[in-house]
């Protein structure tokens, strides 16, 4: 008799419903999962990007794009976010370089002198440089793309970064011709941009170039200047100068024959980083140089080895 209930048939039904509700309720433990901030869709997009949730990032940037008129700075930021996500999302199969390129170019067209145009042009150059594994970049085209950024934004950080990447493509040939070109360009850059955030990087590249050119004294001096101009990130415990001290000391000792500089930097390593793994080797080096000098003095005095 469908729809007709007696008192006795209601009791078990009620009891079962009550039990089911209790069981269901007991399974509902409170959760405190903190969702990414959604107040600003651009912010939310970058939060998703950082967490590797690229579909959500695209959706958030799309929302931001739709919410603001093209003239609004947030619109450009959303475009840049979309371009970056399609360019660099993982897995690689999900990337859409064509779409990314289109967004970057759109930014450059809409706001050609903006910050984001500079970074977009750099991204377009990087698209040509960082090619899939197994492929070789077309270095002429890569350098031309970097030149475009440098020419349009010579004082912008993006332009300076492009300059460093461009010279690195020459230095990494390890051939004297391109390396000499890069060395000349780096000197000019250092003269023109003595306060650049990439000054230390430029000196380090110079040192690498001098290594290829077999000029250890200049290599050493460039390393010293790279250290002097190095920026420091105090929040990173792994960022320290011990590696730079070790490199300078060993170049000075074994390549430039400049024992005074070598001693200075081995000592700095020992004093400033007493727990560094290379401290024992630094002490050993100080003894070794004393020994070499003593041996050479004996030889010069006619005492033999």
């Amino acid at each position, binding site marked *: 008799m469908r729809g007709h209930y007696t008192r006795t048939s209601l009791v078990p039904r009620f009891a079962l419903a009550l*039990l089911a509700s209790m069981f269901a309720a007991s399974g509902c433990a409170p959760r405190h999962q903190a969702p990414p901030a959604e107040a600003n869709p651009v912010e939310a997009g970058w939060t998703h990007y950082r967490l590797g949730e690229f579909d959500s990032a695209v959706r958030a940037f799309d929302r931001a794009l739709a919410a603001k008129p093209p003239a609004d700075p947030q619109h450009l930021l959303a475009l840049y976010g979309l371009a970056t996500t399609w360019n660099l999302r993982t897995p690689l199969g999900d990337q859409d370089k064509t779409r990314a390129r289109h967004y970057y170019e759109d930014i450059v067209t809409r706001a050609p002198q903006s910050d984001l145009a500079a970074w977009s042009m750099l991204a377009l150059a990087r698209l040509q440089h960082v090619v899939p594994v197994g492929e070789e970049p077309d270095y002429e085209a890569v350098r031309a793309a970097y030149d475009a950024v440098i020419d349009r934004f010579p004082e912008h950080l993006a332009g300076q970064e492009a300059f460093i990447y461009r010279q690195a493509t020459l230095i990494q040939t390890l051939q004297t011709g391109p390396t000499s070109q890069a060395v000349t360009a780096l000197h000019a850059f250092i003269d023109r941009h003595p306060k650049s955030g990439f000054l230390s990087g430029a000196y*380090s590249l110079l040192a690498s170039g001098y290594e290829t050119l077999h000029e250890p*004294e200049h290599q050493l*001096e460039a390393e010293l200047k790279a250290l002097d101009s190095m920026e420091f990130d105090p*929040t*990173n415990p792994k960022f320290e100068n011990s590696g730079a001290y070790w490199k300078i000391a060993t170049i000075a000792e074994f390549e430039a024959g400049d024992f005074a500089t070598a001693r200075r930097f081995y000592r700095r390593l020992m004093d400033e980083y007493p727990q560094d793994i290379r401290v*024992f*080797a630094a002490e050993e080096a100080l003894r070794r140089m004393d020994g070499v*000098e003593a041996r050479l003095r004996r030889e010069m005095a006619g005492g033999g080895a």
Partner: protein
Amino acid sequence: MTRVAGFLKRYFAVLVVGTTYLWAVSAIVSYRAAEAPPGTITLRLGHWQLEASVRQALDELAADYSAQRVAQGLSPVKITQDAIPEMTYVQWLTTQLMGGTAPDMLEVGLGTMPYYLWLQYFNRYFIPLTREVNQPNPYNADTPLEGVPLRLTFKDGMREAYVEEMQEYMSVPLSQFGVRIFYNRNLLKRLTGLDAPPTDYRGFLAVCRQIKSAHDERGQPYAPIAGSKYHLGWWEGPMMDPLTYTVKDVADFNRDGFVDNGEQFVAIKTGRLDFHHPAVAARYRMLWELTEYFQVGFTGLSRDEALLLFAQERAVFMTTGTWEARSLLEQAEGYFDVGVMDYPMPSPDDPEYGAVMRGPNYERIGGGARFGITRSCAHPDIALDFLRFITSRAHNEKLNAIIGWIPSVRETQMPPFLRGFEPHLKGVYGNFNPGGLGGETAIKWMQIYAEYQIKRKTYDQVVESFEPFYKTRGMVDFMDTQKEWRRALHDNEQFLAGIRAQALRAEGDAAVSDWVKYRILTTNRQIWPEIFHTRQMKLVTGELALPDHGPYEYSERVLNKVRARLERRADTPAPITSLNPAPEP
């Protein structure tokens, strides 16, 4: 009556289930109420430390923490622990995190889960602590650490807690760990007449020989060393690998002080280094000599089997770490005295090892037992405060004294029986790893090395079988590592774009700091590696000539320069006038 009986008969099953359920609910509620009275804030803490002393120490410190809160008029805090076996910790942690039911604080960094997964979990499920660890720990008031940022109050500066890929501190370390050789004092005395073992390698071998020749009253022999596949690594790392330290003199091409797998391959492929290099040969000779004194079949035995041998007084020596020290002492109590000794390294005048053994082994200070705060934590501020409490100078010392571990915080004392674990902060380290290229090379090495460990192959046979393979097949694996590195370039691009976007959106000091980070990471990750790897590739393919001297060897040119300076009787070299792109005349 009949109606009641009928009712009971009819609904018996439902009533039993309902009553059981109500009983269970009331039992849980009353248990929870007794455990954490109303008004108490309960925090869960998950870890894989099953030793009783760890749970006891955390309970005791949690009680101290709650008491001091109550004294300040704050709500009491109850810390409940989920101690999960190491074997299942990763699965448990994964389901808890994904289900949104994870404890408020979790121990992180277990090696059985790949690092890239930890990275994803950190990103998604844990709260970054960077801002907080740069603030002083209030519980260090009136101590030498007062006003010092929390991260700098740790012996290792919280290096291990910093996740480079995220540029964030993600956890707080409670303790430090070290490894030494434990020995049975009574058995040593009985078998050799010695009160303490020799501290040098030759003396140690002689004692092992003496122990090996001894038998008990039933004619059973003793094993000088309780070994297993697990324990072998604790002999190789601290004692044998440091013998290969001088390999860097010929193979550290990028001058960072270490020989990585690529540099080692380049050095061997180009003939700058081979398996008969004195330092390399010495390392494997020592393995041959030492394993002579392990029990038979040790490579097939587990860690527990070696522990049992030691606990049953059938072996005199065994390597293990601070994590087992307390329980080992407890097991031995009433049976034998446990001693702790440092590794018996060869002396500088050792006829075979003296030339390559330059010093003691280096031990890096690193904070372990690290705890992070999950995003699902209902009271992250209190969880952080609790972590600050147990990592303050006094409480970290107390915590580790109860557990029997080494405190992670500076200016603390360690339990007396751990004094022998004081790390060597000056010393040498290994620079040779034949299986490091991975792929087929690693598999082949493991097969051949396993035969060497059980003395089925001599070292010459090992070299004869492996070195040609390493040079040929190694090239394929080397190229694969180059591809891996190229893939990393893509990952770096993704990561740097995130940092750049953060910097673009930041303002004031935060923007300055973000841009500094961005520039440093760009230079270090995207520019230098490319040059370095290109150099390696060109060296290995012969496109670039190897320098005629090793990175830590003097060339005749340098010696002449030093000679010239000494002749001028000047202490400093001729000044470098300017950086000029023109080559030196």
